[in-house]
């Protein structure tokens, strides 16, 4: 009975959470119209930190995406280029793509950067940890929103 109520409330919120004791907390979020409108855990992102995450190994975004980060020599082309993404996507749309990309495209190779459940054979050192924390997700979003076609 209690379980049923929990499942129901989770479903009605479209929410995901991890309750396993040894995992870093994963923020609860709500999907509304192909978007996660509210910042994870209500956090504010920092674009400078976000740029470092995108460029470096933490996010490793350049493995698959091109971005205006000239000091990194190699950018992949598996995903769309990030130049001008701030004109094309809202914060909420970017948040959904970072947190739960398979809700938009079940075949995507874009990892869910803020997920710990529903994965198989995760290497022990990464088990129970999201690829990015809630703060890091918000930092990346803040950076991506600065990427405008007019170069601002």
């Amino acid at each position: 009975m209690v379980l049923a109520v929990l499942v129901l409330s989770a479903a009605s919120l479209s929410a995901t959470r991890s309750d396993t004791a040894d995992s870093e907390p994963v923020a609860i979020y709500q999907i509304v119209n192909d978007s996660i409108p509210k910042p994870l855990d209500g956090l504010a992102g920092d674009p400078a930190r976000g740029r470092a995450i995108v460029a470096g190994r933490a996010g490793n975004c350049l493995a698959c995406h091109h971005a205006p980060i000239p000091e990194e020599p190699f950018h992949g082309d598996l995903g769309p280029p990030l130049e001008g993404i701030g004109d094309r996507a809202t914060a909420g749309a970017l948040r959904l793509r970072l947190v739960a990309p398979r809700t938009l495209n079940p075949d995507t190779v874009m990892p869910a950067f803020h997920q710990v459940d529903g994965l198989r054979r995760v290497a022990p050192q990464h088990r129970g940890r999201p690829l990015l924390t809630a703060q890091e997700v918000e930092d990346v979003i803040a950076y991506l929103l600065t990427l405008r076609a007019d170069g601002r």
Partner: protein
Amino acid sequence: MAGHGRGPVRRRLRRLPWLWSAVAGMAVAWPAWVGSELPAPAPSPPRSGYEFARPETQAIQDDEFANPGLFWAERGAELWDSPDGVDGQSCSSCHGAADALAGVAPTYPKIDLASGLLINLEQRINACRTRHMGIGPYPLESDPLLSLSVYVTQQSAGQPLQVQIDGPAQPWFERGRSLYAERVGQMNVACTQCHDQRVGHLLRAERISQGQINGFPAYLLRWGTVSSVHRRFQFCNEQARAEPLPIGSDDYNALQLYVAWRGTGLAVEAPAVRR
């Protein structure tokens, strides 16, 4: 690039799993689909990793003075004739000249009749040592074992991959096929998503290949050593932040069989050079 033209049709087919499974004649229960991609047909035509390598990597493989894998082949040739067994046997005591084994390497992995298990070429060499030479196996991934494996494989250079997937090998093949389609690791990706669906795209500086193994054991520039297929599988798993399986494990042999089948007809390159 490759795959874009077929994308929409494929996607539509993938949204009809009942149709796909009926067409493929597969009796797969629903839960087996969860977290798995649908199996793709073998790539047509299969293309060697050589074709996806950078010109400077190709040049190293092509130059018989620069290809470091040839040191392993030479070492293998020495071991082939070196007395090592309890009665002083060497490989050549039974097999004679190594070219007697031309055409053997591209048929592995293969069912071992004595054990009933699927084994790869390195395990076959070790079986020879334990059963016929009265000595212990080489450690998997050890220098002498890889040297002999490269040397034996070299005897089949240019010959087409041709593994048996029916009869007793059939359940192994199916196991390999499902491993190939299973999403794993923190990155939650399956082999097929890159090596069938995104071939030719760039992952950082790497051009994604079909994941063919006709050049293995291959000299890998990133490690400065020859690597077995299984060790290369481990590296892929590590990139996906998945727990690697043991070298020599049944699962990796099953996966190797499936991947070898995907490359049926590809010419053996020995020793190949890859990044």
